[in-house]
């Protein structure tokens, strides 16, 4: 089976091995730790590198072609978020807050996963459309905004119902207050999620990359291109350590959420690869598009959700996104999506569904 081989060869890359190493270090209770300043800096660096790269590509290839894939990605992300919510609330029996928080964590995107994906493609000698970095930037807040909006709607509705049942006199003003407070919160959270460091550095770097082009980039390419994979390796040691520390919590999140954390990314990711291929993206582009949809956010999510939906338990969404989905995505799903995309792109889109149904599913 070629997929198993690809998974195996992916397993033996420094990125994956150092991630697993980090997990083991945490499990044997080693005091190994990448200092905070370094692990806070690395995501900024990675996003700057991704952005510059994307911007330069967009300058080379133009960005007219970007609009449709971006809109489709936004649409899919919204649909998926709603779908997650239904599954979590109805089947998983999570409460409203946890359901929305989890739904948006998986509707949002993971920048670290994206970095690993780029590195994986580089390793396979495959390129991807530069504008996918721009989709990453735009997609970041989309799922949050939807989830926050819906949560606030639900809370307002609850308050309004309470209002009707109680009668109006005394509590009225208190409720007005509650609703207006909710609105200010929403506004504030929107501002926060759009000015969050991840989006800001990513968008800024895309624009700068676009402005400077290959030539302007040459003086900094050693830092922002050649050091890229090494930097991911160092960051993944720390991510491994944190994931390892959270492994115990997996029992607490329950079997349902464990299943969710594996099946949903698989479903979303494969849909992503198919749709991207239909939209005409390249082999690598389809993989990155799929990875966007498959990934869950574990750095940006807590920062936004803790303010937006403070009632939701962060142990649920961080543990599942970082402890289960992230390892699964970079170790197993990434090679699977690559395989699917390879088959789709080699054979042309005509025989698409034939191959999928025969060879893969």
């Amino acid at each position, binding site marked *: 089976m070629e997929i198993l081989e690809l998974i195996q060869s992916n397993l033996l890359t420094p990125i994956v091995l150092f991630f697993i190493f980090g997990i083991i270090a945490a499990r044997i209770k080693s005091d190994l730790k990448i200092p905070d300043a370094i692990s806070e800096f690395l995501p900024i660096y990675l996003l700057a590198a991704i952005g510059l790269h994307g911007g330069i590509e967009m300058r080379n290839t133009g960005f007219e072609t970007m609009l449709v894939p971006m809109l489709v990605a936004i649409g899919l992300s919204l649909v998926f978020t709603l779908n997650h919510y239904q599954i979590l609330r109805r089947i998983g029996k999570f409460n409203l807050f946890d359901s929305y928080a989890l739904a948006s964590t998986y509707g949002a995107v993971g920048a670290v996963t994206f970095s690993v994906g780029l590195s994986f493609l580089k390793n396979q000698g495959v390129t991807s459309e530069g504008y996918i970095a721009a989709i990453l930037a735009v997609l970041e807040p989309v799922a949050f905004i939807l989830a926050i909006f819906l949560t606030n709607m639900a809370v307002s509705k609850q308050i309004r119902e309470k209002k009707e049942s109680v009668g109006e006199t005394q509590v009225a003003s208190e409720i007005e207050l509650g609703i207006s407070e909710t609105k200010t919160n929403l506004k504030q959270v929107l501002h926060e999620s759009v000015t969050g460091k991840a989006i800001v550095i990513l968008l800024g770097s895309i624009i700068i990359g676009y402005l400077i082009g290959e030539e302007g980039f040459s003086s900094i390419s050693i830092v922002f291109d050649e050091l890229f994979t090494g930097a991911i390796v160092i960051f993944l040691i720390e991510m491994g350590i944190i994931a390892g*520390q959270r492994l115990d919590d997996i029992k607490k999140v329950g079997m349902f959420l464990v299943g969710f954390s594996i099946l949903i990314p698989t479903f979303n990711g494969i849909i992503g690869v198919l749709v991207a291929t239909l939209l005409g993206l390249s082999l690598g582009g389809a993989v990155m598009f799929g990875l966007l949809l498959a990934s869950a956010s574990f750095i940006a999510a807590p920062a936004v959700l803790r303010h937006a939906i403070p*009632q939701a338990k962060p142990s649920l969404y961080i543990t599942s996104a970082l402890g289960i989905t992230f390892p699964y995505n970079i170790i197993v799903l990434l090679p699977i999506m690559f395989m699917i995309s390879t088959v789709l792109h080699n054979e042309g889109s005509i025989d698409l569904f034939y191959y999928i149904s025969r060879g893969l599913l």
Partner: protein
Amino acid sequence: MKLYNVKLLTVTCEILAQKNVIKILSKHKITGYTTYEVDGNGARGLRGQGLKNEKNVKVEVIMQENTLQDVVEEIARTLFTNFAIVLYVSDVGVLRTEKFV
């Protein structure tokens, strides 16, 4: 030099609740405070090991006794349920009471 009695409010909470605490302070016209990152353990488990957002912060505020009640009440009411948080009050002496609301 005479020392005047005022209160020192210390709030130890998860770093993502810092904004909420400071907003409550400024709602009560308090603009002076000191903050620093800490690690900790409590009802919500070990904090400060991994990602920056998982850390704790201490917010210390010197203030007059009559402001204290309201601030403490609002912090307790709005933040105690959903956040990892501990709060305590102590007596301190300062030289310039006019600096503290």
